[in-house]
């Protein structure tokens, strides 16, 4: 009996898909299908029009030179090159393959900092060679055309520039990382007041530099990290202020953010070493949730063999 019913069900299905008596496909005649499809075509057409219209209106209200809200992007993040999964730099000294991706990442990133990229005087401004105050370049619009950008010489990164050592120290087990402050339009980082700073940072204090300091994440790892070398403009371990504020992609398409190379010259091998790099400044914030805001953590695991 069940089979009989199933058969009947099949018949109904077939009839539903194509009812030859009434010339109905899926329960509708051709004319009916045409009408309903036409309706939906027009309806969705109108909706799409309205949607695009409202989006256009919204875009009108937004300046192309500066975003409306920046409360979510500031305080900026501190990031490192090479970019690695789970921020773990792990390689073996004897195996160039194992650090190939880091070298490549650095190469790719630093390409923009090559001097042949910074040739044009139309775009680039020769700023002071030592840290200096912010350079304001007018309002955030293109009334005066594009804004000029400060040059940043790759050579300043010295051992980590990749010019002398194309492996950025990885070959010798002394890995370099490049630290940068995330670009935030119009953001003027304020150097820290000198009270609360760690002694190491205080030592190289300059009022026009945003100091960065890398140290072991945990106290007990301190001896595993060994000495840390900083290569930046004029030997300062930080970001000079004359590169700020950033005027945005449209006004400064060739903007070069200041970099700081950090080299760990005597890391303990064959063990995990966790290092935290921290940027100090008055308007730099840290967050428990966001582990890249104003600081970052990187884990080294270098195999000696």
């Amino acid at each position, binding site marked *: 009996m069940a089979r009989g019913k199933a058969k009947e069900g099949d018949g109904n299905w077939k009839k539903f898909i194509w009812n030859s008596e009434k010339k109905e496909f899926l329960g509708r005649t051709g004319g009916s299908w045409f009408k309903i499809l036409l309706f939906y075509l027009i309806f969705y057409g109108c*909706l799409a029009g309205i949607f695009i219209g409202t989006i256009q209106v919204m875009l009108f209200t937004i300046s192309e030179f500066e*975003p*409306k809200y920046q409360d*979510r992007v500031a305080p*900026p993040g501190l990031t490192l090159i090479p970019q690695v999964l789970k921020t773990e730099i792990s390689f073996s000294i004897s195996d160039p393959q194992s650090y190939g991706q880091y070298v490549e990442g650095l190469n790719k990133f630093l390409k923009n900092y090559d001097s042949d990229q910074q040739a044009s005087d139309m775009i680039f401004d020769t700023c002071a060679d030592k840290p200096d105050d912010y350079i304001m370049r007018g309002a955030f619009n293109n009334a005066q055309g594009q804004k000029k950008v400060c040059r940043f010489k790759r050579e300043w990164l010295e051992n980590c520039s990749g010019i002398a050592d194309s492996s950025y120290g990885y070959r010798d087990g002394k890995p370099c990382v490049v630290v940068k402050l*995330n670009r935030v339009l119009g953001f003027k980082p304020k150097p820290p007041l000198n009270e609360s700073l760690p002694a190491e940072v205080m030592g190289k204090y300059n009022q026009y530099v945003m100091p960065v300091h890398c140290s072991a994440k945990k106290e007990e790892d301190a001896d595993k990290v060994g000495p840390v070398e900083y290569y930046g403009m004029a030997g300062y371990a930080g970001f000079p202020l004359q590169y700020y504020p950033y005027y945005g992609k449209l006004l400064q398409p060739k903007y070069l953010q200041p970099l700081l190379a950090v080299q760990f010259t005597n890391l303990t091998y064959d063990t995990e070493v966790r290092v935290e790099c921290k940027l100090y400044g008055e308007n730099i914030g840290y967050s428990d949730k966001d582990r890249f805001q104003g600081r970052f953590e990187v884990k080294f695991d270098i195999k000696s063999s």
Partner: protein
Amino acid sequence: MGKGAGREYSPAATTSENGGGKKKQKEKELDELKKEVNMDDHKLSLDEVSRRYQVDLSRGLTNTRAAEILAQDGPNALTPPPTTPEWVKFCRQLFGGFSILLWIGAILCFLAYSIQAVMEDEPANDNLYLGVVLAAVVIVTGCFSYYQEAKSSKIMDSFKNMVPQQALVIREGEKIQINAENVVVGDLVEVKGGDRVPADLRIISSHGCKVDNSSLTGESEPQTRSPEFTHENPLETRNICFFSTNCVEGTARGIVISTGDRTVMGRIASLASGLEVGRTPIAMEIEHFIQLITGVAVFLGLSFFILSLILGYTWLEAVIFLIGIIVANVPEGLLATVTVCLTLTAKRMARKNCLVKNLEAVETLGSTSTICSDKTGTLTQNRMTVAHMWFDNQIHEADTTEDQSGATFDKRSPTWAALARIAGLCNRAVFKPGQENVCISKRDTAGDASESALLKCIQLSCGSVKKMRDKNPKVTEIPFNSTNKYQLSIHEREDNPEGYMLVMKGAPERILDRCSTILAQGQELPLEEEMRDAFQNAYLELGGLGERVLGFCHLYLPQDKFPRGFKFDADEINFPTTNLCFVGLMSMIDPPRAAVPDAVGKCRSAGIKVIMVTGDHPITAKAIAKGVGIISEGNETVEDIAARLNIPVSQVNPREAKACVVHGSDLKDMSAEQLDEILKNHTEIVFARTSPQQKLIIVEGCQRQGGGLSAPSLPPPHPAPGPALPPPGVILPRQAADMILLDDNFASIVTGVEEGRLIFDNLKKSIAYTLTSNIPEITPFLLFIIINIPLPLGTVTILCIDLGTDMVPAISLAYEAAESDIMKRQPRNPKTDKLVNERLISMAYGQIGMIQALGGFFTYFVILAENGFLPSTLLGIRLDWDDRSKNDLEDSYGQEWTYEQRKVVEFTCHTAFFASIVVVQWADLIICKTRRNSVFQQGMKNKILIFGLLEETALAAFLSYCPGMGVALRMYPLKVTWWFCAFPYSLLIFVYDEVRKLILRRYPGGWVEKETYY
């Protein structure tokens, strides 16, 4: 609700399958049961009975023997229908409907989490949380539904054990009172007036015993019970009393011949519960709807699962997408909403004396196309009342209304005083004591129905009958018997200390035959031919009204022949019983309830056919049917046409007569096809002289009608709407029935129909409202997968909508007033008028939902653009966006974002998308208030709905702004302007739908109606 006498409605259904052998067997049994009852105990002599049941007819059974039989046969109670165990019910709530989909979602979540846990050191806990939330949602909604169901069945249980029945049995020669449950076959039982018969009895002796078999046969006339075998048919013979009928007066002794389920009533009860096969219409609608939604969810989920695998996503990601699509597609809160809506209606109906046991039965009455109503008690007051009087050659109308608000007549005539005196004195009925505060017409009486009617009538118009009887003490009497058909009594005269008065009442023609004079305006006139004709006309007229007519006469006995102290002998009859003075006629009827004609009229305009089923005489039945409008004015039966045209009944074309009165004896010989023919061709049908078995046959016939016999090519009939009335007073089906009328009032059915139809409409609205938000919930996921934008709406926010903001507004639609007079349209056709049809889906998903989705996406794009990610940047950004190690993602302005920063923006977008859905759901709620009318016509009178609007807004604001939500639900505070992004779309929804409804009203039956009227 009086004595708790309820009437049952089982939204029964025909069995559409003609199943296997077992089923057939059961059907055969049912068929046999439907035929008349088989028994021969009534034909046996007392000795044979005694031998058969091995019982001493004076001493009864021995206690040991009784205990043996009890152990063997089981207690004398009807077996309740098999109940499902509680845990099965609970599991059904837990795993039925959408729950199973959500369980799959939850399991997938746990699976995804465990995979992540194995593969990563620091797995994100999102999936674990989501899994827990989903499981919690299922369990909570399951518990909620279970609780609702348990609550309503508890109310029922309280009805079950209302009064433990007692029975007086004689065992070992001693009278003992025992629980009716312990009565066994062969027991010698004594019943007296007022008792309920504890089992089927063969009477062995009786004293003026009368029983009311109306619970079995529907006939309210008390019937005499005596040991004589008078009829072949056990239902008609006098020497059998049936279980659960009532003894009205007198006493009787009988031998129990069957107990429990083996009694006639027990067999009918099981027959009645056997009718209940199908599910309620609303249950089928909901199932159909769940299948539809589940189908869509599974289809979308699987196709996107495959699509995402093809697009190169990992298995894990594909599974997470699958979860998202399932969560977005299932309206989690909807079943709870439906339950609440039904509960609310059930409560409302309970207030109007319709107790609903099974929530889904709420709507059943609404889809009713035929109501088979029992006459006694439902259409009528179940109380014989004096309706008319004839005296002074004039018919006077008495007040038959329940509250004595009706017309009255001139009571000054001396004839009336005489008539009232006869009716009061020649009357053995008395009020039961202790009812001084009850209004007279509602007092309980001891005595037969007509005498009680007379008693009440006289008490009402002339004051205390008891005093009258005290002043005119009774000297002797001859009780009514069927041979002389009169009752007389002789009283001392109040107004003459020396004289006696003879009063007599009885069948009018017999009384008239004994009279030689007639009282007119207090004057005693000789009874002439002219007066006899007048009497005859009046008698015919009252009889034609279906009323029971009694004649009254009296005689002042001459003082010289009958001085005080005369010994009247009722056996020898040493006093005159002829040449009396005729006083008048009084006629009685069980009058219709006040609200019934109105209710029947409402049913008729609502397209519901009302069929009256009664055990009464056809003339009475017809009169009542005419009185309450079941046979409407101007409609004729075949017999009427025949009488009008003066032709034999056989020559009348039955098609011409819209009304018809079917006699039970005709029904017995009728085939099912003939019955169908009658049900189909007549709009106004009365079944008279029907037995309970026949009632069931009629109900089944009605159900066949609902199945649509006009289209024979269609598949077997769907369970037809048409709640049936199983025989009243049957205790068992009450437990099985889904709905009970607490006050036995037909008018309550109409309320039920009205509420049922309203809830069907309102459920449609509620579902349309809830389903609409599914589109803005699912489209984010689809676009996330297809065009690789950051996810605009997360699963948590989806749950917030489905289980948070959408709930109260959806429920508030249950309070919506009807748009038009719902009692003026035809009952819904269960085949074509579905709860959720393609037009509703087309409106909710295809049109309003799409506008809502655009509103949400607009807000989403606004927030991202204002934060630096212009729409053009967003396309294809997903891979980088969701890459945890990418902490310098560039936006349209060249700014760089860490993972967490952009996630905060993303979750802000989720919150804003959610808020936008709330905003567009405002408009949706307002447009869902009506299906055809403009909201300006309907008004905003639904306070709950306004509360719902405020509540969802407040909840959304709370979720967004409450501190800590960022951690708990990852919902972030919104800037004020972002709330307004969806406003244009909200307005668009409102305007679009108002325009649509305007076209709908302007061009009824047009394309817009065909495609969008749900």
